């Protein structure tokens, strides 16, 4: 059985100015121990999806319009708020982009981790402290630093603390929202390496939200490319990187300056991300697509399975399939 199965999830923000269709008919599957990369640009609906899984969206304005989120077989959208609270932290944990705001500035780092452990486990204070020390060791922080305050830690170290906190209760699923975007490259490399090691050691499944295809290449097993609230391409790492199929994915790869090839000019995707309150008809990517045909402007493309497990939301593959 899959650890997490999202079926037909749609999340809208209903405001006075209009309805913003942030997530539209998203399907995702995640097996035990797997890491899936959720890739997309600002406003693609990555974070909304993640917050939706944890039911942390503020409602109103957010509204889950349809769908099921099956975690170990139970629909998270149907459980009570109390049960959800138990699931958060215990079974599913989340790491946010900015480690600076995730920690309480006036509490010792060790105490913060201990508190989280005590909150979710039925254990004595001593046991919790012991577990806290183990966690710090695990993320590569000297145990003596548990007595220090967050401002005494550097950005990379703070993110390690946040990760230690998230993993303290042995969650089955970790949702990491751009965990290294705020960090320097060399520090990012350290944190990513540590996360990879931890994943192997603990067997945690992970949803890694990022805009950096480089991070995806080194950390994920599966990739979902999101655009305007939809998954436009979905497949294994190999399928996505070797058989780039959706025009948007292609544009993303072409936008990144290469480190080994000499390219005189980049080939960016023209135009801008559509406004989620006024999505175009037909394929959502059609105004920016270089292969756009008349049909793309009117027909909404379904997901075509071009290879076992490799799904693409583009009409070009529909004709081939027929």
């Amino acid at each position, binding site marked *: 059985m899959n650890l997490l199965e999202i079926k037909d999830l749609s999340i809208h923000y209903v405001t006075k100015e209009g309805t913003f269709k942030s997530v539209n008919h998203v399907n995702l599957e995640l097996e035990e121990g797997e890491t899936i990369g959720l890739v997309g*640009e*600002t406003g693609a609906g990555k974070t909304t999806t993640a917050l939706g899984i944890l039911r942390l969206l503020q409602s109103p304005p957010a509204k889950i319009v349809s769908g099921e989120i099956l975690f170990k077989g139970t629909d998270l959208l149907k459980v009570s708020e109390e049960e959800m609270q138990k699931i958060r932290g215990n079974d599913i944990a989340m790491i946010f982009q900015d480690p600076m705001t995730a920690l309480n500035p006036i509490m010792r780092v060790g105490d913060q981790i201990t508190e989280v452990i005590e909150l979710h486990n039925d254990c004595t204070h001593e046991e919790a402290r012991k577990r806290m020390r183990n966690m710090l060791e695990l993320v590569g922080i000297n145990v003596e630093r548990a007595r220090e305050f967050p401002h005494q830690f*550097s950005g*990379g*170290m703070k993110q390690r603390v946040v990760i230690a906190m998230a993993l303290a209760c042995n969650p089955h699923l970790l949702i990491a929202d751009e965990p290294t975007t705020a960090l*320097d*490259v*060399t*520090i*990012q*490399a*350290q944190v*990513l*390496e540590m996360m990879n090691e931890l994943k192997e050691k603990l067997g945690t499944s992970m949803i890694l939200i990022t*805009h*950096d*295809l*480089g*991070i*995806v*290449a*080194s950390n994920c097993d599966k990739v979902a490319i999101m655009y305007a609230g939809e998954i436009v391409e979905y497949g294994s*790492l*190999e399928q996505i*990187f*070797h058989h780039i199929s959706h025009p948007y994915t292609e*544009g*993303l*790869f*072409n*936008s*990144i*300056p*290469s*480190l*080994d090839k*000499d*390219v005189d*000019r*980049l*080939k*960016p*995707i*023209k135009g*801008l*991300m559509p406004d989620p309150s006024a999505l175009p008809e037909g394929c959502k990517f059609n105004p920016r697509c270089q292969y756009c045909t008349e049909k793309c402007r009117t027909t909404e493309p379904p997901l075509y399975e071009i290879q076992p497990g490799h799904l693409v939301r583009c009409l070009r593959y529909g004709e081939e399939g027929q």
Partner: protein
Amino acid sequence: MAELLRVEHLKKYFPTPAGMLHAVDDVSFTVETGTTLGVVGESGCGKSTLGRTVLRLLNPTDGKIIFDGRDITKIKGKELQNLRREMQIIFQDPFSSLNPRFSVSELISDPLRTFKLCRTAADRKKRVYELMDLVGLARRFENSYPHELDGGRRQRIGIARALSLDPKFIVCDEPVSALDVSIQAQILNLLQDLQESVGLTYIFVTHDMSVVRHISDDILVMYVGAMLEKSPSKELFKKPLHPYTKGLLSAIPIPSIDVPKTKVVLQGELSSPIEPKKQCRFCPRCPYADERCQNEVPAYEEVLPNHFVACHKVREINGL
């Protein structure tokens, strides 16, 4: 090609309660007309301070800046104001770099008003349209306010503002790091086109190695205020000589699954730029550091033609 900018032993220190912060410490380089010098480094390495000091937005503590054959290190008043027409800056943050109370046309024409470059309002409008066309900003946005526009368009306003005075030289301070990749590529192309059509010279400050490789002719690597390596862009990526550059390059996540990852993960963190010891800045993290590195600031020397490195052990490490 003619040399446009020469910086000699530039230093910029800031007083802090804990002591002198050496933001830029003894940096020297030259930039030729029509080329781009990329300045890379991690946060707090002094790359932005370097850019601002070169523009005289900050006053240098020591050293010399020679622009277009003229020593501009100490000029002030009217002379400094006139220098602004030749040197401009593009900022990182497309939100805070635009005055929220100004409309697009006011933002772009503000420098024109400052220097009273256009005699009539109609002239000014014509010039604003010219600039908007140049940076690819639709004219219908002239009365919009920055908060109504997306990051890419806002960055185009910043570029148009910088171009309004017809500068020869622009410092680009992380101009694309706040943007999405697809928009980032659009802006990079725009900057390249402008360089070709107007003949601009850039200093391009960034932390993104793939961007800097794409846009720069030469690259300067900085670390906690000091310059560690400078070489032509392609050579730096092919044959990095300084151990920090090697670590930096291998830390970049490459968007490909075919490249075997031989990662040199640099351990440790950046040291403090406040009252640094007289030693190689990188030695606390350097796998090759020995006693000499801990007691002596390495000299900056031309190890290979046009390839400068500040490292005691560069020859030993690279077998030169």
